[in-house]
């Protein structure tokens, strides 16, 4: 090890710093805001039908976010998080992956699920934590998960999915699967120790995983210049010896292009790739947050000009793959569907009391069975105090 320092390499004889400026990180852009394509830009593989599906996902996303924010304000659900302004990173990511690829996301990636066809009912059942929720009503709204769609259930602790994705991908490789793992996280989560752990583990053990950083400028109220002082997250890829791309995250063709390239590389070379998508969180962090406490309307307005959805729509229009009439109809259709689905989901019963103790282990152990039995007896004594479960066992 290390003997090569006496053989080769650049030598200096007085201290010569390198630093964050020592590496140039170009940014990949394909689409201009007006829907035209940069000269010489490489387009992703994208047929008409596929392109329309992508756009429908965009519209569904916008409508879902808009309606669920309203539902939260009305007190119908307790919590929500939009991805306003960042939809290209997730819809585009999913559109560039294969369905068998595992997605391990942070929480703002409903765009992936939409693209993969998570049903409106599934969304609603999760948010209303009713008995039809695939997660059995145990987690806060937006903590989706779908085994069928290869979308790992969201877990709130930040960054934990990063080394997990390395391990997941390593397993895929070992078992010779034609699949990779896609791991999303925010530029805030990239400060966690688990980020360092996951990237280095993946690099050393050559796991076919794409680390996709949504750099949206904020972690709740903390702007990215109080999060790091290096050249974004991409500059860290160099340190791990991982192939790295920085892209315009509001440019869905750049996203697809990058993810297609990265997927191919990861699968063929059995190596991780990191992508940093530069974007902006246009909405509040969550329904519990009010961004006016930490940033200006002007700043937000500047980013509204770079809207990924209208940019992509402009391109579709130039392709003659979409028209304004279709557009209006689609928005209307989704709005109606979402409203209807809310009304259905909120009437579905909460999970049964047994679900308190199932899934802690593969089988309910003695001590939990005893706790459940005592609980049932207690509920029978005070049915009014436990309205969701009383009278149901």
């Amino acid at each position: 090890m290390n003997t090569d320092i006496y053989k080769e390499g650049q030598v200096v004889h007085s201290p010569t710093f390198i630093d964050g400026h020592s590496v140039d990180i170009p940014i990949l852009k394909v689409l201009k805001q007006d829907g035209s394509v940069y000269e010489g830009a490489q387009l992703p593989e994208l047929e008409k039908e596929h392109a329309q599906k992508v756009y429908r996902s965009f519209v569904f996303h916008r409508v879902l976010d808009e309606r669920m924010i309203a539902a939260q304000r009305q007190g119908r659900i307790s919590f929500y998080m939009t991805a306003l302004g960042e939809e290209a990173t997730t819809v585009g990511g999913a559109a560039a992956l294969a369905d068998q690829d595992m997605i391990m996301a942070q929480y703002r990636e409903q765009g992936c699920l939409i693209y993969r066809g998570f049903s409106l009912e599934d969304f609603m059942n999760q948010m209303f934590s009713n008995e039809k929720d695939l997660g059995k009503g145990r987690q806060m709204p937006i903590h989706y998960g779908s085994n069928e769609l290869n979308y790992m259930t969201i877990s709130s602790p930040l960054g934990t999915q990063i080394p997990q994705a390395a391990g997941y991908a390593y397993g895929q490789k070992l078992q010779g699967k034609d699949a990779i793992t896609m791991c999303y996280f925010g530029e805030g989560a990239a400060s966690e120790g688990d980020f360092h752990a996951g990237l280095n583990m993946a690099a050393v053990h050559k796991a076919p995983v794409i680390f996709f950083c949504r750099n949206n400028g904020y972690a709740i109220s903390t702007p990215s210049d109080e999060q790091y002082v290096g050249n974004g997250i991409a500059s860290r890829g160099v340190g791990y010896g991982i192939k790295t791309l920085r892209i315009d995250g509001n440019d869905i063709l750049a996203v697809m292009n990058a993810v297609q390239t990265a997927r191919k590389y990861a699968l063929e070379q059995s190596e991780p790739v990191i992508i940093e998508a530069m974007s902006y969180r246009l909405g509040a962090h969550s329904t519990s947050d009010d961004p006016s406490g930490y940033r200006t309307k002007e700043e937000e307005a500047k980013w509204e000009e770079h809207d990924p959805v209208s940019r992509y729509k402009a391109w579709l229009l130039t392709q003659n793959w979409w028209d304004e009439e279709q557009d209006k109809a689609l928005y209307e259709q989704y709005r109606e569907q979402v409203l209807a689905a809310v009304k259905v989901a909120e009437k579905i019963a909460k999970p049964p009391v047994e679900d308190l103790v199932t899934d802690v282990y593969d089988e309910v152990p003695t001590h939990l069975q005893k706790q459940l039995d005592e609980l049932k007896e207690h509920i029978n004594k005070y049915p009014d105090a436990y309205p969701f479960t009383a009278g149901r066992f």
Partner: protein
Amino acid sequence: MAQMNLLQAINNALDIAMAEDDSTLCFGEDVGHFGGVFRATSGLQEKYGKARCFNTPLVEQGIMGFANGLAAQGSRPIAEIQFADYIFPAFDQIVNETAKFRYRSGNQFDVGRLTIRTPYGGGIAGGLYHSQSPEAYFAHTPGLKVVVPRNPYQAKGLLLASIRDDNPVIFFEPKRLYRASIGEVPEDDYQLPIGKAEVVTQGNDISLLAWGAQMEMIEKAAEMAAADGISCEIIDLRSILPWDVETIANSVMKTGRLLISHEAPLTSGFAGEIAATIQNECFLHLESPIARVCGADTPYPLSLEREHMADHLKIYEAIKRSVNY
């Protein structure tokens, strides 16, 4: 005296601590300009500058490592962990470093000036990761002090004592009460003792012991029991580590019965330690088994939150069982 909610009482204590000592710092995720996601540090950056009250990068192990270093250096760091559910990435820094710093160095170095503040507890539809009560994990760690206040008055007095205590203190704040609990709080400086439980209400038939937001639950249950003619002695443990064996033992010698309630899951929760110690101290005085009414042994669920919780009804039933044993 002023009316304050629990958040205001904490903010007020931090303000006093920062004013009196230039080396006192407040930091954590979103703690700076924004004042923290619950606004506990509101106004402090404005008043004391960005160097003393600031946002950190999103890394709990870094926050605690940084805080340990600052405390060893002689500053007085008050580090916030945004939710107690997110204290675990810092577990090594707290359990292997903070707690053992003085001992391993033969008292050459210590981090006694450190205070860790973190909101804990359930009952707010927070699900698995915004509801946990991890005090027992830290109670098994010699070298730490662990404190939990039950209301604004207690919060201010105990927090000031924690900040000034020459040992590292984890200060768990009952977030369910942040805005819900309002009370009279002196505007001046005062401290309440660490390591001392408080008998909140005298009683004869059974001792009820809890801490933090769970105090409300035992108080409600005691009211129900009073209607049945059962006289409950209500005790707030306040300090989990070191804890006040004497006050609890004295109470149990008098009442002959003990019920302990906490939010955290039953198994290996801190009620276990208390029960084990008290059955030893008061063996011949106990008229019924020491009862524990705690969270179910599951992760904290969202929609079955009420079923999971150690609420006043479960406590009331356990009081009756104990008295009728």
